[in-house]
């Protein structure tokens, strides 16, 4: 993949252009964490990182970037591989940041710290959700993709809020979150697999599209 390295650099340059927005996200999350404590850190960072990552797939600049890709010696599949790779790395970075923020908050507020399992589990969950949502962005663009993301995220959060008291769900969640750290690694594994499958789907969609 001779065009992968140049494409990765291009994606990074595209992200750099949005660095102010990135900084704002990070600040908002840190603020929310500081206010609400360590427990919200990871979910919040999750939402923020998803919004940033999906930016890469469906930005306002999308039309122009698509034209740029079309004029370069660049294969469509390489565009997808690069987007996915950068997104995955970004997600990891965000989770690390979130864990850091949570750790600081926990220390400052003398709360129980967040463990590795939480971090790993969050990463896995994020990779799963992204894997589900990204092909929608690729296939239908920012607006519809954004809607799909909103629906998925709202469903998950709504579900948690509505049935948070439900003992079965609470037990399952506790199982995921803390008991048995292996569970979180399974989630991570599922996330990685889901990403691979999602990449294949996205490549198929993107390659066949008219731009």
């Amino acid at each position, binding site marked *: 993949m001779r065009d992968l390295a140049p494409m990765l650099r*291009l994606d990074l340059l595209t992200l750099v252009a949005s660095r102010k927005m990135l900084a704002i996200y990070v600040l908002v999350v840190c603020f929310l964490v500081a206010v609400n404590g360590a427990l919200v850190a990871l979910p919040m960072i999750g939402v923020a990182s998803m919004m940033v990552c999906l930016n890469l797939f469906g930005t306002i600049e999308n039309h122009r*970037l698509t*034209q740029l890709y079309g*004029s370069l010696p660049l294969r469509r599949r390489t565009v997808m591989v690069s987007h996915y790779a950068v997104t995955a790395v970004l997600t990891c970075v965000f989770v690390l940041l979130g864990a850091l923020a949570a750790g600081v908050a926990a220390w400052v507020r003398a709360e129980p710290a967040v463990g590795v399992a939480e971090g790993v589990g969050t990463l896995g969950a994020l990779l799963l959700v992204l894997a589900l949502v990204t092909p929608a962005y690729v296939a239908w663009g920012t607006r519809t993709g954004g809607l799909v993301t909103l629906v998925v995220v709202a469903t998950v959060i709504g579900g948690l809020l509505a049935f948070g008291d439900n003992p079965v769900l609470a037990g399952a969640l506790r199982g995921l979150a803390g008991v048995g750290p292996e569970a979180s690694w399974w989630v991570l594994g599922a996330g990685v697999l889901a990403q691979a499958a999602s990449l294949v789907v996205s490549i198929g969609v993107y390659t066949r599209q*008219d731009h």
Partner: protein
Amino acid sequence: MNPLELTGVIKRRDGFTLGPLDLVVPRGYVMGFVGANGAGKTTTIKIALGLVHADEGSVRLVGHDRVGVVHDQPAYVGKWTAAQVGRAVAPFHPAWDPERFRALLDWAGIEPTRQVKELSRGMGMKLQLAVALSHAAELLILDEPTSGLDPLARSELLEMLADFMTDERHSVLFSTHITSDLEKIADYVTVIERGRVVASTTRDELVDSYRLVRGAASELDADLRPLVHGLREHGVGWQGLMATEDTVSLGRRAVAEVPTLEEIVVHLAKEPRHA
């Protein structure tokens, strides 16, 4: 080897069919690609670049690394500086010449730290040209590069192109609805109308093969009508475009003149109108 050859290309979309279409850019020459807006020029170019997949037909393009593209708006992230545009594109082109790029930015009057979104239309066009000329491109594809430009910027573009063409390995595909730009520089012209190619020859032959005719109403009989493209009848006569060989059948009061490219495109695109 010609840098671009489209053969039998067909694309169906929303009730509009493009093609069957043949388009060849002969190596070493400028091919003007003209037609009204919506005639299919941009779709054709997208098919040539691989942005759109044709339903039928074949596309042969010299590698993307040897092609430079100029659109009516720069295809770069708005917040990028001119220098970042270079950094984004350079890794894809082994033949990228950073000195040349800097010199061309100079010519364009663009500071390397200037953001793309701050550039005027003319400078946006020049930035794209600078990028295109910095990686030893052999084929320049220009898609409406001059729309919205002041005459000076347009003239500078044409001068750059004329210079580009002094190398016989270079070719240009110049797609525009501003046909006056092509009067000076086009060697060949392809006219597209409602998705079909209606003419594709040298510019001189194209202009020779039509005449702009103005005549008296009384001489517009049933035999003549179907021969007139874009017929406009008004209170004191009529006007239209005719194939040169058909002008032999004109009445004595008719005046037949050599048309400009613009008049050819306009009349081929117009439906007949009555005053």
